[in-house]
């Protein structure tokens, strides 16, 4: 397994862990109806949990450092896929409630950070999966 594939697997696991931590926290905040300083304090606690995970993810100065030209190309293609995935996902989460609930209805405020977190997760997920699929397709005939 190449360094790029290892990085993609690591990224996939880490972003899933962050997502799994963040979503219950968000629903907890929504349930207790925290706002103002209460809300900030809870967010600070959540950040204390998730920041070390993100630090592990992005501690390298450059994600592409140490990759060869093929891996950089795969990474660029995966980034394009991630942007496409992000756009499609964002369009879905914004338009589906609009069409389902109707233009005059209301949505809960916690839906907004949920959209943000889910979009981040979707983009990272598509990026990692795109890297793994490309590596698999290019290497399947190799020895």
């Amino acid at each position, binding site marked *: 397994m*190449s*360094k790029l594939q290892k990085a993609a697997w690591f990224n996939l696991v880490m972003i899933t862990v962050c997502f799994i931590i963040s979503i219950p926290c968000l629903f907890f905040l929504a349930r207790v109806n925290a706002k103002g300083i209460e809300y900030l304090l809870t967010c600070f606690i959540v950040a204390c949990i998730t920041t070390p995970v993100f630090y592990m993810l992005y501690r390298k100065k450059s994600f592409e450092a140490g990759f*060869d*030209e*093929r*891996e950089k190309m795969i990474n660029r293609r995966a980034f394009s896929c991630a942007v496409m995935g992000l756009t499609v996902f964002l369009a879905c989460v914004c338009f589906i409630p609009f069409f389902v609930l109707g233009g005059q209805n209301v949505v809960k405020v916690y839906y907004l950070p949920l959209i943000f977190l889910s979009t981040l997760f979707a983009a990272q997920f598509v990026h990692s999966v795109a890297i793994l699929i490309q*590596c698999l*397709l*290019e*290497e399947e*005939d*190799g*020895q």
Partner: protein
Amino acid sequence: MGSNRLSNNLRRLRFENDHMTQQQLADKAGVTRQTIIAIEAGKYAPSLPLAFKIAQTFGISIEDVFQYENEQS
């Protein structure tokens, strides 16, 4: 419309050079073994600098390693 294809003799050249492994070639060319695998399988067309580096590793010209085929349909 014509289709372009870059073929190569990497596998044959490796065996003619003391059964050089993909990893040894990758180390000499400064890329990963997966890249050599992809080039050999014709799934990745290397950049010009990398193609030259591979040719230099075998001590031959770039045309002896890579062949460009332009198939007209």
